[in-house]
Each structure stands twice: as C-alpha cells, then as structure tokens.
C-alpha cells in the first residue's frame, strides 16, 4: 500500500438487514489499512451520499441482498452527483444477476462484486478506485 490512508464509506441502502457481507468487507478493508465508516443498515440513498460528502471519503461501497440494487445503487450515484461529489467512485456488492451488472455500470457504478469473490480482489478494486479519485482531486 502507498502511505496514503484512504477513507471509504460502506453503506447499506434500502431496507435489507443482511449485513454480514458489508461488515466483513468493512473489517477486511480496515485490516488492510483503510479508514472505514460503516453507515449501519436501512439508510436512504440521500443519507449515504450526505455521509460520504461529510466524511470526505475516497470511495463508497454499497451492499444489497434484497434485489433493490437496481433502483438504489444508481440513486446513490445520482445523489452524490447532485451534491457535487460525482467523482467519488461507487462500488457495489450483493446478490446481483449478471444482466444487472452491465446496467449498473452504465449508470455510473464503478464495479460490482457477487458472492464468492475473493476479498483480495475487492480490496484491490477499492485501492484502485481510491487512488484514481485521489489523482483526480489533486490534478
């Protein structure tokens, strides 16, 4: 890792309470040198975007296992844009069918991870997204 400590937000949009995955990712990122803020469950896209802006994070990770990703992930991207923070990359994870992945990426989600993905791959994606964000901001 570089000597920059990246700060990221892990959010649970919508009403889904299954946060085993979100908590695991939050802790794994922490163990890999990230500073992690976890929103807790049942947050609206507005709340998540506001927290991301307020905490000045370099990336947002979203998790949903209820099938609501298709509405809620793009809603978070949109809220960030409206708040003038459209450069904060959004990464998603959960029970997400392949055909939705393309759709979500079209709507501005950086990457999507589904069950069974090795955690190293997810950490690498956060590192890449954060460093890209860091460069853009400092350009």
């Amino acid at each position: 890792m570089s000597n920059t400590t990246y700060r990221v937000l892990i959010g649970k949009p919508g009403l889904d309470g299954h946060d085993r995955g979100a908590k695991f990712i939050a802790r794994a990122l922490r163990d890999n040198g990230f500073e992690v803020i976890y929103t807790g469950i049942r947050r609206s896209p507005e709340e998540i975007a506001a927290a991301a802006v307020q905490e000045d994070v370099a990336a947002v990770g979203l998790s949903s296992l209820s099938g609501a990703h298709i509405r809620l992930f793009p809603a978070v991207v949109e809220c960030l844009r409206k708040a003038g923070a459209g450069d904060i990359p959004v990464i998603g994870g959960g029970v997400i069918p392949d055909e939705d992945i393309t759709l979500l990426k079209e709507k501005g989600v950086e990457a999507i991870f589904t069950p069974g993905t090795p955690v190293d791959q997810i950490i690498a994606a956060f590192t890449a997204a954060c460093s890209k964000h860091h460069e853009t901001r400092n350009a």
Partner: protein
Amino acid sequence: MTKSPDFLNWQENELHKSISRFPERKEKFTNHGGGEINRLYIPEHIDDHYTDDIGFPGRYPFTRGVQPSMYRGRLWTMRQYAGFSTAAESNKRFRYLLDHGTTGLSIAFDLPTQIGYDSDHSMSTGEVGKVGVAIDSLADMETLFDAIPLDKVSTSMTINSPAAMLLAMYVAVAEKQGASADKIKGTIQNDILKEYVARGTYIFPPKPSLRLITNIFQWCGEQTPSFNTISISGYHIREAGSTAVQEVAFTLANGITYVQAALDAGLELDHFARRLSFFFNASSDLLEEVAKYRAARRLWARIMKVRFGAKNPTSWMLRFHTQTAGSSLAAQQIDNNIVRVTIQALAAVLGGTQSLHTNSRDEALSLPTEESVRTALRTQQVIAHESGVAETVDPLAGSYYVEQLTNKIEQEASALISKIEDNGGVVRCIEEGFIQRQIENSAYEYQQEIERGERIIVGVNKFEIEEETKPPLLRVDPRVEDDQVARLREVKANRNSDQVEKCLNTLKAAATGDTNLMPPIIAAVKEYATLGEICDVLRSVFGEYREGC
C-alpha cells in the same frame, strides 16, 4: 478422563504406526468456532447418565425428540417459504406448492411490509415485492389467501415487528371464509430480539416490542389455541455468522427473555409456554448440527422445568422448524447446492425437526424459479421416503461422537447464557452490542478461513471451473411497485375514512395505556386501515429503534 488400557494400547501400536507412515490431513480438526474434533470417540467420552441425559423420546429431557414415535407416526411438515411480488402472484405459487405435496404454507413478506411501511413510503422504493409479497391492507391479504381454506392449511408467517397486524389480518380473512379464530393453525415469527442483532426488521424499541409480543401471547392463548405465538429464531443469528453454540445460546437466551416478559405481564406459564416454538438453521456440518438440535432440546427442557418451574410436560418441549443455510449456497456451479441442501436437510431430520424448508439451488443468484423450488421439495421427499432415516427414532443416539458433542454444545451454550445474564440480560447485551460483536467476530474468522484456503468451499475456492451457461433466473417485474401503489390508493379511496380514523384513535389511546392491543388492531385492519397507518400510530407512541453503530 481415564482412558482404558485397550485404548492406550491401540494408540501406541496401530495408531502410532499408521500416523508415522500416513500423516493426517491437518494438524488440528475443528468445527466452525474452533472447537477441536478428536480423532476417535470412545465410551469414556460420554460419561452420560442414560435416563437423565438421553432418556426416551417424548419424555423429559427430550434429547431424543419431542414425540415418542417421531416420524414413524407422522413425517415432518414440508414447509417451503415462498412469496414474492403481488398477493395475486404469490397466491398462484402457494396453490402450486399445495398441488405438489407441500403440507404447510410459509409466507415471505417484502421488506416494507416487515418494517411497517406502506408501498408508497419513500423508504419502500425499490423494495416492493422483492423478497416477499407486499401487504398494505386487508385487501391484499384477502387476495393472498383466495381459495385457500384457512381452517385446513397451517400457515407460517415470517413477520416480527408488525406480527400483531398481520395476525389480525389473517384472523379477519379466516373469519370472512367462515373459519373462526380457534380453527386456524400456524405460526407467526414474532421474535423481535433477534432482529436487533441479526436480521434488521425492527421498528420499535425493545420494551414496547416486548409488550406487543406478550399481548399476542395473551390474546392467542384465549382466541387461537392452535396457533404458535412465536418462533424463537436462531436461524438468522447463524446466517449472520454465529457458531452453532452461539446459535443455541442466543436463541435460548431470547426465549428466556420472552418467558420472563410474559410472566412479568402476569400471564400463566403453563398456559403460554406450550405455544412457544423455535426455528434453527441447518448448516453443512452434519453431525455438529444433529448434536446442536439435541442439545438445544435438552437445555430448553431443563430451563423450563428447573428454572421456571413449568409443570406441564408440553411446556418443556422445544418444538422447532428448520431451514437449510442460505449463506452456505454458492453462486458458482449451482447444482452443487442441491447436494449441500441434501446434507443440511438430513441433519435437520436426524436431529428431529418438526418442519423443514429446503433452499433452492439458485438462491445465491436470485429468488428461486419454480423448477428449483420443486427440486428442493423433492429433496425432502427423497429423504422421507427413500433414505430410511425416518424409520427409527433419533438414529444417531449412542454415537460416541454425537453424544459427546451434544453434551459439549449444551455445556458451552449454557455457559454463554450465564455470561449474558451476568452482563444484565439480553436487552442490555443488545444495547451494548455484546451479542452483535460475538456474531461478527465468528463471521469474520469463518470468512478469513475461506480466504486463506483453510476452509474449502467446493467450486468457490477450490475445484473452480469456467462456467459458460447461465441458469435462468426469476425476475420480479419492476412494474410490481407501481401496481401495488395503485392498488393501495384504490383501497384508501374506497374505505370509510371516518371509521378508519376512529379506529386509529382508539388504537392510539390503547397504546398510551396498558391494555391488550390486539382488539383495537383487529378493529382497524377490518376497516382497511393500512399497515403503515397502524404502525405510524404506534411509532408516535412508542418511538423508533435505531441501531447504534
């Protein structure tokens, strides 16, 4: 423990010789949670007193099962959890399941319903009809059970915070069908404590939530004698990542809390205790799971008889539903999930479950298709009719390993329950995050074992292949949300709003006082007050719970 001379002799000779030539696969063999598994279990390991600890099925302490002849009499209830999209779509799926030999219904509600929001609430966006059926008012419930005779089927409803409202609607539909409340059979989950630590569909803070629960115990005790008033659930605690021991300990500790709350509310122990039921997970560690069910049964019997002094043997019985572990399903090579579910279902049956849901092979990808659901049901039917395991009671009893593990799980769970009580009880431990942290730590360790390759998940971190064909998935039509909102508006336009308002005011007054809330809730649902409206009245009196992070 003293080892017999024969054992020591075997260890020095055959075993030593064999191991020096063929080392074992691992230095240490463990269960999830780190409990070490011995190479071999021998009679010395089970220092049991047969009558006190194992005994006979249908007799205290029920280690071997709650009925004397178990599945030789009646097989377990094959109860497939289902529900999605609209009430009309779900009604079709229920009728399909009933036609294919399922013997009890189990309703999945969507998240807005579970959290007491109407489909047009801003937080409901994207969630309507997704993980279950959307119910906004009695009108939806009437559609859901259309042409399904409620005096004949038994229905389990996975509903917690708004359990009273959904039960009220169920009773109202049954009444319209001509079935009186005392004829209905089924279960409401109604287990709020595990929502705070594992599942997340809470609305109100713990204290008023416990009041709603004891109100239900009391009302059902008088009106619906064949309805299980609660399903105290370890399932979701395990899904959130706990170990088997934690699953038993936290579930029974929650059970103790409900019993105490009901006693504090002045209810009579032997009157409500017989309608308490439980719900456990079935994971893939087959023998540990069997031991877990046996240990839970024995420990609960001892708690009810010794600690609470229940007199009626029915009050001592831990009757439970089981679901196979959703979190164990892989998104890769999904047919392997059929095998996982078979092992898990076998564990539940060998452990003496009263009813069982088997997961479908495609559930790590989406809601299951009709074909996958059929295979899941067939898995139960093959176990029931072909495997032979249902032909004798508690077939694994007397296995040195299973008996030792049963003892061990009981002792460790009992110690963990004491620890919770030393820390001020379940509610305090939830508020302070003690239980959540324990579960999180276990989940983290388990996942790390997988990441490091110490724990192998076939097709996921070993034996992987490139998969070219993708299975067909069930999709919920996105128009469902708009349709549901339109239906809700129609219901609101066609009801007597003065009556609705009157009922909601009566409910508010009752909530402020301390009378039983079931009668005013029933009155309100019958006037087509919506679930969101009823919950909002209670939110205004009880406040809302928000998780501390």
